[in-house]
């Protein structure tokens, strides 16, 4: 039984080495603003098509409406998710997952772990799956999902996805009541830093920005631009006129879809989208996600071959 970790970063490092030891490619965060680890192309796009895949990574995630100026003990507009995606889902995925909890110092003999029904759905990604939220002593510590559909495509084979809310999980393991008080590095380090030392100021700055300062006209315009660009990139013929190669621009187009999604979240936080409009915006992002999924399965990574083009 591993000992209790001392800091936020130690928990992340242990998860990284645990999933590396189980054969996952340890990837780095995607370099764009996203609402959750699922948006990383290593999950969204790689869960499509027939090629096997196994990846784990930390993804900084932004939810502008959750900003609380760094004052709420549990809520942040910027936080970290740990994400694991394995395709096809291995038969012992539950056991692998429980092993990861042990690796970060949760003693299975003392705690009560439960798999409670929770069907996952992402209206913006046109994705859904069945699974559970995992409870540890009554607290939700992870989401566990078997993807059934992504971007409107049936998943075949099915990917198993694990998402850990890192701050919440770390606070639980370290016994911390306020996120800002959580040790970020080892408390006995020459320069000990808390989560608050690292993020309190940015939570304030972004809360002000997200709720009051972001220019909404510009955000609306950028949304339109991202939407148009995504569509335009995917309308280009598959054959690149310069190289003569088949190059479908699924990823660059998907970047625009991610952008549109984040711009929508910002507009939502600014309170300028009415209840009825909300559904329409979500529908527009979903339409982009579907286009990108359609494009990805026409690429090599998505299972396309010249001999047997994907359906």
């Amino acid at each position, binding site marked *: 039984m591993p000992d209790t970790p001392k800091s936020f970063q130690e928990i992340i490092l242990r998860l990284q080495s645990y999933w590396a030891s189980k054969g996952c490619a340890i990837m780095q965060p995607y370099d764009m603003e996203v609402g959750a680890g699922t948006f990383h192309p290593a999950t969204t796009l790689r869960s499509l098509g027939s090629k096997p895949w196994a990846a784990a990574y930390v993804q900084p995630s932004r939810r502008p409406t959750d900003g609380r100026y760094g004052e709420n*003990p*549990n809520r942040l507009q910027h936080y970290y998710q740990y994400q694991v995606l394995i395709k*096809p*889902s*291995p*038969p012992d995925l*539950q056991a692998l997952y429980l092993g990861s909890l042990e690796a970060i110092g949760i003693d*299975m*003999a*003392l*705690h*009560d*772990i*439960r*798999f*409670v*029904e929770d*069907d996952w759905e992402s209206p913006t990604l046109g994705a859904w*799956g*069945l*699974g*559970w939220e995992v409870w*540890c*002593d*009554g*607290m939700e510590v992870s989401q566990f999902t*078997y993807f*059934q559909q992504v971007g409107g495509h049936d*998943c*075949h*084979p*099915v990917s*198993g996805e694990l998402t850990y809310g890192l701050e919440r999980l770390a606070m*639980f393991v370290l016994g911390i*009541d306020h996120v800002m008080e959580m040790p970020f590095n080892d408390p006995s380090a020459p320069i000990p830093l808390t989560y608050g030392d690292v993020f309190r100021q940015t939570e304030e700055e972004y809360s002000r920005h997200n709720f009051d300062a972001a220019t909404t006209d510009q955000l609306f315009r950028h949304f339109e631009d991202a939407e148009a660009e995504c569509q335009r990139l995917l309308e280009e013929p598959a054959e690149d006129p310069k190289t003569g190669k088949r190059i479908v621009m699924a990823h660059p187009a998907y970047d625009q879809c991610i952008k549109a999604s984040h711009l929508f979240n910002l507009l939502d936080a600014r309170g300028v989208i009415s*209840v009825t409009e909300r559904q329409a915006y979500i529908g527009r992002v979903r339409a982009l996600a579907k286009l990108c999924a359609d494009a990805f399965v026409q690429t090599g990574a998505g299972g396309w071959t010249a001999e047997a083009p994907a359906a």
Partner: protein
Amino acid sequence: MPDLLLELFSEEIPARMQARAAADLKRLVTDGLVEAGLTYASAGAFATPRRLVLTLEGLTGESPTTREERRGPRTDAPEKAIEGFLRGAGVRMDQLEVRPDKKGDVYFAVIERAGRPAAEIIAEVVPQVIRTFPWPKSMRWGAGSLRWVRPLHSILCLLSDEAGSQVVPFDVDGIAAGDTTEGHRFMAPGRFSVTTFADYEAKLKRAKVILRAEERAEHIRHDAEQMAFANGLELVSDAGLLAEVAGLVEWPVVLMGEIGADFMGLPPEVLQTSMREHQKFFSVKNPKNGRIERFVTVANRETTDHGATILAGNQKVLSARLSDAKFFWENDLRVAKAGMADWLDALASVTFERRLGSVADKIARVAALAREIALMVGADPDQAETAARIAKADLHSEMVYEFPELQGVMGRYYALQAGHPPEVAAVAEEHYQPLGPSDAVPTAPLSVAVALADKIDTLTGFWAIDEKPTGSKDPYALRRAALGIIRIVLAEHRRMRLDRFIDAQLLRHKIELSRPKVGDDVIDTLEEILSEVAERGVFGAAFKAVTDRLKERGEDPAEALRTVGDLVPDLSTDLLAFFHDRLKVHLRDEGIRHDVIDAALSKPPVDDLALVVARARALSAFLATPEAENLVQGYRRAANILHQAEEKDGVEYRFGADPKFAETDEERRLFSALSEAEAAIIPALGAEDFAGAMSRMADLRAPIDAFFEAVQVNAENAVVRRNRLNLLHRIVETCGAVADLSRLEG
């Protein structure tokens, strides 16, 4: 006679699906086996979070041999017909027999099916059931194509008898049936083999799994109650939560914890809802002060520290949850203490229904109608209007946003904080009642006024936009609303005419719906009619009064007015018929036949539901008495003869039956019996004592019987005949005074 044991072991099955899945497994497997010719003595099905289990006792070892003869076409039939027959019967040409028949030789197929061993049949039926199992939602996993509620890991399938037990060999998508299972995920990991159902259940228990859901639930209930009792407290029982929690654990361990003192100031409904919805905790209440002071959580394992770590974790999560609730409560209190104006303003931008406007629009309509109803139920109109205006304010509170099921409950607390008297505050909660068939109905006059107004507004609104319930579709719960009105009216025998309220509210809807389409002058006229309705109580009279006034002024009733003039009465009649249908359904549960209600509905006013029901109940009680049958027959006979005579003669025999033209004693006796009965019946009717009136009618049974026995109605003498027909009319009139008996069936 072997026994069958089947276990389908998977990852965690959602609690809400388990009981139904166990029942489906039993039904589908037994149906399949019986169809294949097997029988069994008894069956049982069970579910835990990780397994579905079926046990069958006394299964037949093999299916019987069957022999079926099928008659085919004649031997000289076209080749196609013979081929078709061969295909249908599944036999070859050389297996057919030729038998002579009346019209020539005919082919016969004799199909013999040998009996098959049970194992072979099970190995066909079970995989088929697994592949087509009716989960409400199912999924694929890995690279396979099998669907199950969550990944299926193993199948245990054994046939056992005195000689021992044997695996039934089959395979579903690579999962081969075997004789092993697993115990508790954490407390007893590892697989073990079993032989029989008794062995299986005993070994599971040793491996920390209680197979039976009701045993797990009983264990939880017992321990929770004992723990509460030992602390001088009591468990708040919650059957739904108990069933759910029993489906989340294989080895329930009950733990009780404290709710922080910080949160004791929250309303008990908030504590209970937050704990149940978010954490699946039971509430534990102090019987002395009614406050919820502790919680019970159910863990899925024993630990060396006796649950101390688990309880501490749960307590921490609860504190975070209740901190949120407290935050909502405190924010809400600020708005409430300021009079709730912020919420009421905000409700103008919350849509009730696209065409019927905002929640604020609805509140305004309900407030207007509540004033009118108040007078009929003994409430103060001003108070009723105030109560209606604030009753839905909490819909915009943070607490109700978080917990929609607390609507009304919070409204009551907030209205009190806003300084309203308790009877006004109570309306916030009670105007939604009754929520279901077993929910209480409001009885306080203010609550009755607003509850009726709210429901009538909903019904008339959806009638006005033609969104009535059809078949099984009733998305706006309009049947429930109508039944709610019926129950409120009947609960306290509230006498009121619904028509005027329905008309007024339909008109209010029509005004709002027409506002964007017509000129101000039309709206003014409509509002004039509305105030007339409030005054006169009848739409027709009000409409006429206003149109007459317009004509006097030399104005022509506008097109829109003509529309309203036609539509409102039609909708109103249709809606009242809907009420009568719901009334029949409601009274059917009381044992009152629909034809009895039809008979009661033949006497106006039919929009006074309490009166209609009083008639129906009196008639229904009367029909159970020995006099009833003859009296109803006598009534029918009188009505038939009278009807035929009137038809034939082209006149109505209604008045002037005179004893002086009576020729027989029976006639004279009937005259005097009718007079006596009428003398009692008329005041009884005036007092709405329908049972009393009907019992007096029963006294007429003997004289009516005697009359028909001795007297020929269609006498030769025209005067005598007319007199007798007029007498028949008196019978019909008197016996039909409570309800039209000719509507009765049979």
